[in-house]
């Protein structure tokens, strides 16, 4: 297949994902350009998390190919063939990608500062002084400078998630994946985290993929929205189109349900 490397920064080419007998993604194709802020929405179990986890190399694929910046993710080029990737290839590809999890997954035995400064030391070999300097800048950016010596158990959910975002940023990935990063938070803490996402969106050209149930944030934040159901893209387009004039019946039904549940989509 011919890739236009500008438009096709992230490409899923007829990807199939199975868990045993259960087919979760079937012939999924999509492409995302560099610097795009994309939201993935859809009903529970539609495969949104799975897509992010495939990109983060946490889930392998059973068919098709994924490309990042023209390089196959789960395969390696060998002569003219693509063969399954080995760990070295995955390590190389993973450098470009970062992920923020729904349940933070901070390291409980490290302080907030160490959570952010240690990974670049451990995996990129950055020296302690400069990784800590960078970590302090990031702590400042997420508004938690006063918490650098706190352990995760001493932080609120919203604070933990902002640390987790800073931790992902410290690795300077080209692609950032966010999997429902506010859905484990108390409602009053959600806005702080969304503000940090807005900041990142505005101040960097990092490509961002966001799985979210916060429709109004997806509307405002992203330049493109994918609506998934049963492991397929049902509809995609600019947020105004998807949220105000959805074409597909399934999209309309999904949004209607969301509005009926009392959530805003504008």
């Amino acid at each position: 297949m011919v890739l236009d490397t500008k438009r096709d920064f992230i490409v899923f080419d007829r990807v199939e994902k199975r868990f045993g007998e259960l087919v979760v993604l079937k012939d999924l194709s999509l492409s995302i350009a560099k610097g795009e802020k994309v939201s993935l929405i859809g009903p529970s179990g539609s495969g949104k998390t799975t897509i992010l986890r495939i990109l983060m190399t946490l889930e392998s694929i059973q068919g098709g190919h994924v490309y990042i910046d023209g390089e196959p993710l789960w395969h390696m080029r060998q002569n003219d063939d693509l063969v399954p990737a080995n760990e070295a290839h995955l390590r190389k590809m993973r450098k470009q990608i970062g992920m923020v999890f729904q349940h933070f997954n901070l390291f409980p035995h490290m302080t907030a500062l160490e959570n952010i400064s240690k990974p670049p030391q451990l995996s990129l070999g950055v020296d302690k002084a400069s990784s800590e300097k960078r970590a302090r800048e990031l702590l400042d950016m997420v508004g938690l400078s006063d918490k650098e010596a706190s352990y995760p158990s001493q932080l609120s959910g919203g604070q933990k998630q902002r640390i987790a975002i800073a931790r992902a940023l410290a690795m300077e990935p080209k692609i950032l994946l966010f999997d429902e990063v506010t859905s484990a938070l108390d409602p009053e803490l959600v806005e702080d985290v969304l503000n940090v996402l807005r900041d990142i969106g505005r101040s960097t050209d990092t490509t961002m993929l966001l799985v979210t149930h916060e429709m109004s944030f997806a509307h405002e934040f992203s330049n493109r929205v994918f609506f998934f159901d049963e492991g397929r893209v049902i509809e995609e387009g600019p947020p105004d189109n998807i949220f105000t004039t959805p074409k597909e019946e399934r999209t309309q039904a999904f949004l209607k349900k969301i509005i009926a549940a009392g959530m805003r989509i504008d």
Partner: protein
Amino acid sequence: MNWDWSYAFSLIPRILEGLTITLQATVLATVMAAFVGLVFALGKRSQNRVVRWAFYWVVEFIRRTPVLVQMYFVFFVLPRLGVTLPALVSGVLALGLHTSAYMSEVYRAGIESVPKGQWEAARALNIPPLRLWIDIVLPQALPPMIPAAGNYVMMLFKETALLSTITVLDMMGTARVIGNETYRYFEPITLVGLIYLVISLPAAMSIRFMEEKISRNKKMLR
């Protein structure tokens, strides 16, 4: 049979000398079990099926045979095969190996107590395997292991008495020699039992104390 105080007091220096051997053996076998136990635990988690299978059976074999048999094997049989080791070394090897097999289970439980999200975060951050173990997994796996590991060390401390059966002059060995010399076992054996008790009891209590502290911490972290 009556207790002879002055005889008992006269034995104390020799028995304390034996105690230093007992403690040495305990420490050496513990250090060995801490390392070899981890190797066993990692071996049983290997990606390679053959390696996994081999480690599984080695550990089973060690656990399902008496430590005394293993000790006799190292001390009496290995020399026939050309490997002659000092008695204390043979004994420590057997005790250490036996404890390693049990420690590997303790490690397994500790490693499995590290939540899946931690492994995934480490993978997402591209942390290489050695650093993953040293900086992420073990610091979280070790603290909850302390009570179980502590209990095995205390068992080991008592089992060092078996060293006396392969001529080592540990505390028990010393008591046996004294008994053979004087035909009076009452005082030396009682003294040795008391010393085991005086050391074991506070150790057991502090392990229980740590156990409670850890479970309280865990609740706080939730």
